[in-house]
């Protein structure tokens, strides 16, 4: 079974996670830039983070046989902080990098005017750079937030088939799919979605244009949720081809719109023999 986790924050995870993900079948992932839990206070802090998503983290992933790509953006929460908004001016030089496969995570947190501006500006950046966009839907007031997001996408130069609306649930999936966008679901131990609810969504809405991710980060989360959804799908009677579509072909099709996906990472060899990541001076 091959798995593509289209949304996971590996910067916050350990090499044990990389190894467990590889063993579970994960061969590719996309790491969106997002809020780190601790607010940033300057654009330079974002630049170091972006550089890590373009440098060190892909190296770490490659040590475990996993292809790493990223999405870069000013996240919705920090779009409200005037100390951080100059990041928008610097994004063009980052969006030309090889492993950037979308602009993201963008979207709404509290639905403020500053978030309106950042969302519209970054959808335009995606259109200008011929990149798709990964759009986070808000945790609070989700359905209203989804509708407002879809309105902004419609007003943008980016076609809906270039947009992935993420963190959806039973109440938002219909409208998201009807908009022509792709639909993403984050499977969490406690919040967002769980495996069985995800299987029910797939039963009701089919397997087209639907992506499943772990969105694992620094909070309580599980980087193997993608595999657990795959197992739950098979148990519920979905075919292996259905599983491959949702957990591999759909994310490849969506992020492949960037023209920048490279999925041929060599399998790890000596790494599974007891060496941890190569670190000078260990």
């Amino acid at each position, binding site marked *: 079974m091959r798995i593509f986790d289209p949304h996971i924050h590996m910067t916050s995870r350990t090499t044990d996670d990389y190894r467990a993900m590889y063993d579970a079948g994960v061969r590719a992932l996309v790491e969106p830039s997002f809020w780190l839990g601790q607010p940033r206070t300057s654009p330079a802090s974002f630049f170091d983070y972006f550089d890590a998503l373009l*440098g060190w983290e892909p190296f770490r992933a490659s040590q475990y046989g996993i292809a790493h790509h990223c999405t870069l953006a000013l996240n919705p929460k920090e779009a409200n902080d005037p100390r951080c908004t100059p990041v928008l*001016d610097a994004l063009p*030089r980052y969006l*030309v990098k090889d*492993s950037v496969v979308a602009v993201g995570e963008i979207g709404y947190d509290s639905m403020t005017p500053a978030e309106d501006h950042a969302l519209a500006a970054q959808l335009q950046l995606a259109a200008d750079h011929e990149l798709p966009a990964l759009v986070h839907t808000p945790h609070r007031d989700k359905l209203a937030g989804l509708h407002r997001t879809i309105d902004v996408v419609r007003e943008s130069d980016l076609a809906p088939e270039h947009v992935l609306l993420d963190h959806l649930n039973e109440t938002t999936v219909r409208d998201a799919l009807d908009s022509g966008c792709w639909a993403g679901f984050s499977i969490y131990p406690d919040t967002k979605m769980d495996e069985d609810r995800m299987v029910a969504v797939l039963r009701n809405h089919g397997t087209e244009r639907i992506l499943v991710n772990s969105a694992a980060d620094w909070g309580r989360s599980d980087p193997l949720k993608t595999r657990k959804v795959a197992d739950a799908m098979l148990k519920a009677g979905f075919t292996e081809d259905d599983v491959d579509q949702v957990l591999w072909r759909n994310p490849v099709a969506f992020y492949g719109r960037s*023209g920048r996906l490279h999925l041929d990472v060599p399998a790890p060899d000596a790494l599974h023999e007891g060496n941890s990541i190569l670190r*000078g*001076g260990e």
Partner: protein
Amino acid sequence: MLTSREELDAELGEAARAWLDAALAEAADDAARPQTAADDATRSEAAADGAARSGAAADASRTAASPYASPSWELRYAAAGRHCGQRHADSVRSLLLVEARAPLASITRLYEQGTAAERRAVLLTLHLLDLGDTALPLVEDALRANDTRLVAAAVGPYAADHLAPHAWRHAVLKCLFTEVPVAAVARLADRSRGDTELARMLTDFAAERTAAGRPVPEDLRTALALTAPAGHPAPPTAAPAPTEES
């Protein structure tokens, strides 16, 4: 290794060749552009502090719109692999740097703002640019990295020419630690010959590995043998025998 322009022309398709021609022309234009006071200020600033994101000041003189704007050839530098194929990306990026006669401000910016692959291409090209030892902060930065692609690119001819003895010895040791083949170290034999301090460091490292019950890297023996003075080959038993390897 880097491929020449002639070899690239023979291998690239028409669209890629046209893209490369345009990119090199933009780089040449930038090289011909008179240096401004801002460039000079940035150059000395970058020389003084390699860690600063110091390119912005120079670019502000070219494009007042954004403090983050870059010359067009620098944007092409990032996209080289997508237009000419990833296997040619190092060579194309290197050609761009040479064609632009990239000053320290540019290479510092391209390195600091670059992906690992873009940084590697800067490191691989340093010896082809007229930089003296001013780019050493970039080499030192790469040698602090644990990304083996950067470490390997950092120990090329530029490091052989300019790294001070202490830093150079640590670079050799770093290669052994991170399993970068010592074959990547430019002029290893020349610089090692008669280097008793490097020999001591290698011997200590071998002893540490042996004490831990871990194998001594074969490359360590290779490097250690090269430290013998000219005409005095090192005895084959100079490194402590490992306890567990074959």
